[in-house]
């Protein structure tokens, strides 16, 4: 983010025009939108500056998860901006808590809690991931070439989390922002208690999709087994189609027939948490 060019209000207008800020919470929100002139608020003083052209390789075969993460930190401190991790062999919690720019490539599959709590790196995983990949991710991109486990992108707050294959259940549970894209199918309870952000499922969605979602948008290209409580279909607008086309093309997941067939799901906002009236006001009404 350090090298980002300020875009000014024109950028804001464009992002609104592209439908990037359509969520409207009835209650208070703690979301803070990025403003380039306030860039220092979004940087971590202790995060190292790295050079993308400085490349290192790390063999994780004989290392524990803690050792792999410690080696990654040491390499980043030395300024390495592109790191390839070989033989991860399904180990858990690899690549977590990275708060700076980085090109991180895993040559193989990861276990649970892969690349959670990250804020900035671009990660590519040439394999599959276990449960809770990208949990609480704040910025950056994560691209998984194969399948992913359940709770994919739990509580994700920003960035793009993309799985080319299918994912397990409860995808995007408690999602608070950002974008989750699934090239294949997703399981039950996807988007459960989703609060903000966008989820795109190119294949089919399991039961209780969007159950108890507060806000945000879910797009499904295939069939939906059934909708959860307070999740309702909405009109797929031209802005939606433009955004979907751009995002799916970016990750080479755009279907040959385009995106017109996608179903859009939003919150019906009929749950109790949308009733913001104070008890005294309720009494007056009653």
């Amino acid at each position: 983010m350090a090298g980002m060019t300020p875009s000014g209000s024109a950028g804001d207008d464009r992002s609104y025009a592209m439908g990037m800020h359509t969520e409207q919470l009835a209650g208070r929100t703690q979301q803070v939108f990025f403003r380039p002139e306030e860039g220092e608020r979004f940087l971590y003083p202790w995060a190292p500056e790295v050079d993308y052209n400085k490349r290192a390789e790390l063999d994780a075969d004989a290392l524990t998860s803690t050792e792999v993460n410690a080696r990654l930190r040491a390499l980043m401190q030395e300024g390495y901006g592109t790191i390839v991790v070989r033989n991860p062999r399904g180990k858990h919690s690899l690549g977590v808590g990275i708060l700076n720019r980085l090109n991180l490539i895993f040559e193989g599959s990861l276990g649970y809690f892969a690349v959670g709590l990250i804020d900035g790196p671009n990660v590519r995983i040439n394999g599959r991931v276990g449960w809770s990949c990208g949990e609480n991710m704040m910025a950056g991109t994560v691209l998984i070439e194969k399948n992913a486990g359940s709770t994919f992108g739990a509580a994700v707050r920003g960035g793009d989390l993309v799985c080319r294959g299918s994912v397990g259940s409860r995808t995007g549970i408690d999602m608070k922002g950002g974008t989750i894209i699934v090239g294949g199918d997703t399981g039950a309870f996807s988007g459960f208690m989703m609060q903000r952000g966008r989820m795109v499922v190119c294949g089919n969605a399991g039961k209780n999709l969007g159950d108890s979602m507060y806000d945000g948008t879910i797009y499904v290209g295939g069939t939906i087994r059934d909708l959860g409580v307070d999740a309702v279909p909405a009109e797929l607008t031209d802005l939606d189609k433009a955004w979907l086309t751009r995002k799916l093309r970016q990750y080479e997941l755009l279907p040959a027939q385009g995106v017109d067939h996608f179903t859009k799901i939003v919150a019906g906002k009929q749950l109790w948490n949308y009733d913001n009236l104070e008890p005294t006001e309720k009494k007056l009404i009653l």
Partner: protein
Amino acid sequence: MCGIAGVIHRGGVSGIGAEMTSMLQALRHRGPDSTGFAIYGTPAEGDYVMRFKVAEQEDMASGFDIHDRIRARVEEVDRRLAEQGVTVKDRAASTEYAMRYVVSFDGDMEHLARYVEDVEGAEILSLGGALELVKDLGDATTVCDQYDLGGFRGTHGIGHTRMATESDVDIRSAHPYWAFPYNDVAVVHNGQITNYWMMRREMERKGHRFMSDCDSELLAVYTAHNLANGVALDESLERSVHEIDGVFTYLVATRDQLGMAKDTMAAKPLVLYESDDLIALASEEVAIRAILPEEIDTSDPYDEETRVWQA
């Protein structure tokens, strides 16, 4: 939390003891209390393998006369087997309290099992033509070494690493559970069954016995009940998803099959690798990588999914 794992070779035998040990050792962090194996070998025609214990591991520190008591219990088991017309062809003690007998018998197997279990401290862990069920306290490597499973060859197996949550840390509460009295059927489970007591009472009214207060034992009894009533394994698995409440993933192995079932919430993990000649399942990818280190494609079965594979 607990970890479960299973592997089945289609149309061939392999070093199933070593494979299961590697998989379960990789899952040690999910359950360090006890480890259990249900592995299926190639049986000799007409023979049965009976694995039983006559004491818990913790009993070994319970008094000066425990060794005499164990010896007396084993002698009593031997006497009852002889009385029932059982021929013991091979006798081995894996530990002081856990025995492995190869027997031939053509009478009522359920009656025999109940008669043996009537001996104080005795519990038959498994009785079957192909199944050998071993479980004890400690991690997979410890149990493997203790019971000499490293060289065991067979077609398939299931296993469990247990983190005790709702019942004791002892062999009685460890998995796998033999589906008493059904030959060669064993179950491992990860999860919690919330209608356990209701279903347990229902099964007890139908004459089934429970050896522990562990909710997982219900799945073995439930499976045995269905199989005894002519229900096929795949049908039993499908029914269980709707008749058993809670969050669970469990594996069932029979003489020549391996099955899995996942609850309606898909709340407990399972990773599946499937190829033409090998199926491997485990709570975590890392267990499958323990026997298949090369890059492979795996997936997570979805909610209410049940599968059965043939050896």
